[in-house]
């Protein structure tokens, strides 16, 4: 659930436990201990960032653990990013197909 709704407890879940839940939920596994430690670190960073986003959001949005919580910003951008579309839209003036209407 959202970070905000995490009631104090007795104690909030340990980061590793939350990470283990993430791994189970999104079927993640890591090839070695070093990779595991690196992903855990990224996960912690992303959780902290999510908490900041939630504090700053002016609406009702909740942020937290998602399928991308073990990815860095760069990795996520490469996987799901998009060509930059700001600036001038490329020229689309090109002859388009046949002029008949209706059936193909």
């Amino acid at each position: 659930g959202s970070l905000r709704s995490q009631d104090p407890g007795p104690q909030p879940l340990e980061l590793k436990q939350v990470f283990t839940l993430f791994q189970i939920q999104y079927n993640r596994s890591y090839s070695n201990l070093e990779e595991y430690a690196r992903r855990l670190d990224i996960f912690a960073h992303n959780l902290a960032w999510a908490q900041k986003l939630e504090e700053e959001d002016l609406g009702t949005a909740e942020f937290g653990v998602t399928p991308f919580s073990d990815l860095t910003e760069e990795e996520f951008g490469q996987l799901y990013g998009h060509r930059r579309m700001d600036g001038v839209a490329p020229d689309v003036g090109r002859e388009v197909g046949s002029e008949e209407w209706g059936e193909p």
Partner: protein
Amino acid sequence: VPPTCDWRKLNGVISSVKKQESCNCCWAMAAVGNIEAQWAIKHHQSVELSVQELLDCGRCGDGCRGGFVWDAFITVLNNSGLASERDYPFQGKAKPHRCLAKKHKKAAWIQDFTMLQDNEQKIAWYLATEGPITVTINMKFLRQYKKGVLQPPPTACDPMHVDHSVLLVGFGKAESAVDRRAGAAASQPRPKRSIPFWILKNSWGAEWGEKGYFRLYRGNNTCGITKYPLTARVDRPVKKRPVSCPP
């Protein structure tokens, strides 16, 4: 403009939430979602169309490296239609040199495509009276989004830097007792605040967000939602009465 609109509630209009996997094809999934919805509304026939055909047959080469919604529509126009998802299924990677468009029957086709004015009232009107529209937004706040109405601080989500295409499928208002605006004292009793929002279909799978959807604040061009509102036209042009300009 009606107070609320949600095309998901009309059976057969909005197809299941797709998942890009490791392919940058949000532009193709948004365009296909738009054509599916427009076709179902105008022809009363539910279809699921091929994203893979757009990835393989687009004029910009490898569709998994990103693309533009208008190119998707041009590809559909050039191919005189689009195959069904069943005939030409999604594979998560593009084969730009193996376009199989000619091998499959066309399950739907479009007459034209258009870009709407960058005005949220007009976009809402078109959405409510014609059907879902593709939009392209700044996706900065989506990665860690879980639920609720996204309303980033106005300067935090650059409306000029749009990098993710999604499908606009509805709008509404949410009541919120939480007031996170600057200066709002937590201890003071708060009147309920009505938050207008857009409903958007993403292409990151159903486990992300609100079952694959997310809601974005409506009214101040949040994250650049009015920059490229594009939609295909699937119905025949209605014969217009001739007009003549006064001499």
